[in-house]
């Protein structure tokens, strides 16, 4: 089977899975008989909107209307509570920038640091540097992210007073995402996010590189006269990167997802917080749209990871037998 066909098949399967999940979610949500909000100041428009969404019709009819709206008008419903009477899709898009910025900054830090630490640990395997890094990794992987977030807030934010405890709003920062005030207030959330991913990446790099370093082709490379650093950078790293690059790709896709915990702790008005709000306020259409957003990101990153394995090393074809 050609690669193209394989890709198509995976995407097709993903769409089917997404559709089934969407159906399940929709039915389960509508079964709850959502409590309609009080008629606001746009009572007439609101009633018309509800009629158009078919709120009093059977669930399957509502679902058909919902699907039709999505495919014809890209209309994911209306937010009734969070952003009164705004289209759900635009509510989500409005919340994307802070999430994406914070997560991109986090990746900019954690990818190089993680890989460098991992390579260092693998080269110094079983020396004290390696043990130290291993202990730190163990700590960072085990300790929950809210614990570091609190520690950072308390030490760097409160005791030393270097950074604000929560992220500034766009308004305070003068309407610019990359102003000095904004970047300063992003330091703590970015740091607390990056600890976990640095640890994960370091652990993976170390494990992969250790395995590569002990394999026979490394011995051959040294025998034919390469220096240790040449052998590592030209042979071992290339092989070790095969599983690491897909993971990084997955992390990059995960930028969109946002981190609920960090966004809650640091008051970031991002997508994770939106999702939490939609749960607590029971804003059904936003909840549905955000759930699907998460779902599709999850499925897409699985596919991207699997496919990138195939591109990096054509012998691997994930999901095949």
């Amino acid at each position, binding site marked *: 089977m050609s690669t193209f066909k394989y890709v198509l098949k995976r995407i097709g399967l993903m769409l089917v899975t997404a559709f089934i999940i969407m159906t*399940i979610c929709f039915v389960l949500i509508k079964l709850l008989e959502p409590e309609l909000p009080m008629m606001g100041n746009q009572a007439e428009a609101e009633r018309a909107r509800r009629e158009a969404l078919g709120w009093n019709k059977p669930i399957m009819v509502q679902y058909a209307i919902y699907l039709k709206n999505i495919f014809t008008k890209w209309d994911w419903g209306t937010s009734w509570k969070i952003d009164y009477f705004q289209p759900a899709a635009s509510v989500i898009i409005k919340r994307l920038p802070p999430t994406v910025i914070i997560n991109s900054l986090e990746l900019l830090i954690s990818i190089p640091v993680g890989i460098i630490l991992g390579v260092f640990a693998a080269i110094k395997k079983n020396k004290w540097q390696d043990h130290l890094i291993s202990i730190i990794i163990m700590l960072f992987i085990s300790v929950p992210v*809210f614990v570091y977030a609190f520690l950072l807030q308390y030490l760097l934010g409160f005791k030393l007073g270097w950074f604000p405890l929560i992220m500034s709003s766009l308004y305070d920062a003068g309407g610019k995402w990359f102003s000095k005030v904004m970047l300063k207030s992003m330091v703590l959330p970015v740091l607390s996010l990056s600890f976990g991913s640095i640890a994960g990446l370091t652990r993976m790099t170390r494990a992969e590189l250790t395995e590569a370093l002990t394999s026979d082709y490394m011995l051959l490379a040294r025998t034919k006269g390469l220096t240790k650093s040449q052998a590592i950078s030209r042979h071992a790293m290339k092989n070790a990167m095969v599983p690491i690059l897909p993971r990084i790709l997955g992390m990059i896709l995960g930028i969109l997802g946002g981190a609920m915990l960090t966004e809650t702790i640091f008051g970031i008005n991002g997508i994770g917080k939106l999702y939490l709000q939609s749960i607590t306020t029971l804003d059904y259409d936003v909840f549905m749209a955000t759930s699907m957003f998460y779902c599709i990101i999850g499925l897409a990153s699985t596919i991207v990871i699997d496919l990138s394995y195939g591109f990096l090393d054509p012998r691997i074809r994930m999901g095949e037998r």
Partner: protein
Amino acid sequence: MADIKNFVIPDIPASKFRLVQKDADIHDVKFETKPVGFFKDAWRRFCKNKSSVVAAIIIACLLLFAFIGPFITKYEMSEANGTYAKCRPINRALNINGFWDGGYNKKLNDKYLIYIMGIGMGAEDTEGEGCQWSDGIESQYGAIISIGDEYSAEGNTYRDARVDSYMEMGFQYLSLTEDQYNDIKAWEAESGIRAIYPMINIYGEWCDEYNRDDANYWYRHNAKQWPVNEKGKKMEVADVMENGLIDNYLRDGDGNIMDYMQRDSNMRTVRVLYYNYYQYRNGHAPEFLLGADPTGYDILVRIASGLRLSFLLSIAVSLVNFLVGTIYGAIEGYYGGAVDLIGERISDIISGIPFIVSCVLVKLHMVNTGKMSAFGGLVFAYFLTGWIGQAYLVRTQFYRFKNQEYILAARTLGAKDGRLMFKHILPNALGTIVTACALDIPSVILSESTLSFLGIYNFNSRTLTSLGTMLGDGQGYLSTYPHIILFPALAISLLMISFNLFGNGLRDAFNPTLRGGED
């Protein structure tokens, strides 16, 4: 060999033959050493790994703490005392200065310094004879543990002091019936501890009308809350240090101080030293070993309860996942073909649902409608998606073993499918499965605390709490009352670290070939 055709077997008479083992049973020779089975071998490898042994010990200690914690403290799980909410950790038996003393550092201005010191002085002035500054410092009810030098900032003078968060509550007014009053008096006589202090002349000249509810203003003060002397002149700190404070107690016609003020025919207003009144009510002094939370619950007993919840939940979840995942994976792997294909598609779809989505749906459908408790709902939510990893592992193991010769041999001997699956194949996969279960535990603990931290599942009730809930509720007190966050955070970090180490040790012990592969 060449002569084999010509070889003649001599005729040996039967009587020359004799049976070697005529009376003995024929059997293999026993092992000289003790046999080492798979689990014993794994156990030996596990014991060699020091960090996981230490982790196992820590887990055991935490488990012990979760169950005996409630007996260490004098507090019940559901016992909240709003007066002592947010009090600092204290241990009177191990009261080392500045550590575990229930105090906290506070910047005091002059007026507030007198007020706080006044609590200890008032506790010593029981007879209305006035009280000196030194009495306040020495008083066992003094609210100031230690005090720094004076310094000025922004035009005011301040002192840094360490304030006892328990004594700081000082005095309170209570309305009691005569019987209650007599009961306290009887208790006082019996225990020798004084709870009822002289009533203040709150309607008199020397009590500001805004301070009539604050029983700590026992001394004469003016409308600006500064203490005054006999002549009604404002006293500065130095003055108070030298001459002490003058009481403003309620006196009858003969000049005797009164312990209560009659409100109406049966209610009396009395002024109690809350610390001692608390002893009267509860039979012990207030002593929160790890401090009190914003509601006034004892943090220690709440942490024990949160740990209990984490343990029970994670063990319940990994057991359920173990059972369901093993059976599902066994059936998929053993029968293969169409069964496997359909089974895999089902688990593909279920694993595509983000965990948070399924959690929320379970909460909305089951927990909010009252069909399940929060605990049951959480177990159910984990179960919905959690067994898939386990099933996948078991399926792989079954694929590996089902076509091996010994299975064929067993089948030829007539073993049924069930026997083959669970008696012959499964034990081979047991190491992997047990490891996966052990590694499931920390991830369940982590995601449970995340969910309850975010308030998606709320465990904050009188009888139930979770570490995540404690952290989430304590978030706002991070800079002012760090102990509220510190102890639950420590507990969960310790739990996570030790479970991860333990799980890794178990993995290395059961699958020695994987060693170093993933960590």
